[in-house]
């Protein structure tokens, strides 16, 4: 009995020793900030360096929820999420299905589609800015070829979100295609065989076999895409040269958080906004999980 006790004690010490480096970093830079960020959003009067707090309250949340800029950021972000997520999922699923149909150059196409994903967003945004240049950009050349008139892509507010959606779809497509392909290859071939024997049409096979059996992957991709889309920032920051686009049409929630914190030094307001973002993402994730549970019982 004593021996076991001793062994367990030494095991506990050893275990803690092994997890110490990782856990220390995670506690200091992950767990502590989560707690701190939550409490900080209630500080209304404080000295951030000394850590002294003179007053607490709900003022920061009131400020954020009354700030027209925050609503603009919410609106822009929702608009972006609604455009980017469905479009990128449909396109990548389509391409994944094509690649899955016994194509010889399968891996060649795959590696091309994946290329933007490994490249720095900041660098890519600069290329896109040049493509959408109002006078000499490639985009306007295409428009002219199709018989249209030059468009002021980057200074017309109505094009801001569509450009960001296109950029996001372009950049993230490869990643989603690869995840979908992995999901498609996990589906047991015998289902397709028996469907063929029964003479099912291609569309029927897709809706009755592929889609239901792919639903875990589909939910994984949609949840991560929604979370990622809500956090859009780098693209706007570089595409609009450290600004928020014409008439703030590219002001997103993370951009709002960044502005409050980095440009206006309003730490507690920024923390409150960050928490609102967290709650929004949490609600969306929970809704998606709920839909996922009711729809994928296979």
């Amino acid at each position, binding site marked *: 009995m004593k021996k076991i006790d001793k062994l367990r004690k030494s*095991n*506990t010490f*050893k*275990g803690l020793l*092994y997890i110490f*480096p*990782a*856990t220390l970093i*995670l506690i*200091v*830079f992950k*767990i502590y*900030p*989560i707690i*701190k*960020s939550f409490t*900080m959003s209630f500080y209304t009067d404080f000295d*951030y*360096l000394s850590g002294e707090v003179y007053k607490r309250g709900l003022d920061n949340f009131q400020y954020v929820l009354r700030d027209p800029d925050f609503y603009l950021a919410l609106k822009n972000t929702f608009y972006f999420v609604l455009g980017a997520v469905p479009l990128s999922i449909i396109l990548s699923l389509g*391409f994944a299905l*094509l*690649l899955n149909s016994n*194509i010889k*150059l399968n*891996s060649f196409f795959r590696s091309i*589609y*994946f*290329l*933007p994903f*490994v490249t*720095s*967003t*900041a*660098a*890519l945004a*600069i*290329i896109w800015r*040049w*493509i959408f240049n109002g006078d*000499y950009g*490639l985009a306007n*050349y295409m428009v*002219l070829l199709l018989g249209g008139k030059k468009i002021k892509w980057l200074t017309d507010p109505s094009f801001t979100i569509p450009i960001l959606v296109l950029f996001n779809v*372009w950049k993230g*497509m490869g990643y989603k295609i*690869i995840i979908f*392909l*992995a999901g498609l290859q996990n589906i047991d071939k015998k289902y397709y065989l028996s469907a063929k024997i029964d003479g099912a049409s291609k569309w029927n096979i897709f809706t009755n076999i592929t889609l239901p059996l792919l639903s875990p*992957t589909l939910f*994984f991709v949609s949840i991560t895409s929604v979370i990622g889309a809500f*956090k859009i*920032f*780098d693209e706007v*920051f570089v595409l609009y040269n450290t600004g928020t686009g014409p008439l703030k049409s590219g002001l997103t929630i993370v951009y709002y*958080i960044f502005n409050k*914190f*980095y440009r206006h030094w309003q730490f507690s307001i920024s923390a409150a906004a*960050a928490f609102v*973002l*967290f709650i929004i993402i949490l609600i969306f994730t929970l809704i998606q999980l709920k839909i996922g549970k009711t729809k994928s019982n296979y």
Partner: protein
Amino acid sequence: MKRTLQKTLIYMILTVGALFILIPFIWMISTSLKPSNEVLIMPPKFIPSKLIWENYKIALEAAPFNTYFKNSIIVTVSVTAGEIITTILAAFAFSRINFKGRDLIFTILIATMMVPGEVLTIPNFVTLSKLGWIDSYKALIIPWCASIYSIYLLKQHFMSIPDELYNAAKIDGCSDFKFLWTIMVPLAKPAIVTLIILKVISSWNSFFWPLIVTNSKEMRTLPLALSAFTDEFGTEYNVLMAATNIIVLPVIIFYTILQKHIISGVSKAGIKG
């Protein structure tokens, strides 16, 4: 007949997709080699009348790229090495050593994955400025030297290595530490390679964090340098594209060499996460 038609159609769609992906890259390379008088013209020329490699020289001389390169390499290498070491140690403890509070600690760590990183920025900035680390390598490196996602992924791999191996090694008097590095790590090599590759890419391209924790030119990394570069060379797109290519090229080479690993790694990591 119908089958060939179908195949042709599929190939056509896939090629259009590939062009859609590649055109911005081709456009970047083409612009970066153009003489100045061929940049701002309509209709644009895809192939320059002569190749101006000068543009790359101008770009390299316009900004302290040596410093930026050095910073990006130092940060990427240290962050990757740091994360892999802490991950291997922690994943081993969580999968093999049976100690008190193990599952509780692991659950708490996993729960933090749900909080978006942006929420943590402000308190982390305050912590770093209290430590006096703002605008230093420490700020760029240390907070990224541990990742619960990687620990989780590697733990799953470690758990698939049979227990008998561990028990046999124990009986032979092999210490845990030796067992970990001489048996577990080599057996989990594919997973570790995946983690290294993903970390190198994300660290090399990281933008938001270096933007916030550095403010002097000496500490900036490549992606940040580019955004500052655009202020200077706003309309000289040939030089700007040359600078962009200087930043993009290392990753593209890295990717071309390791693409098989990267793609299979991402598909595995994605399905598990």
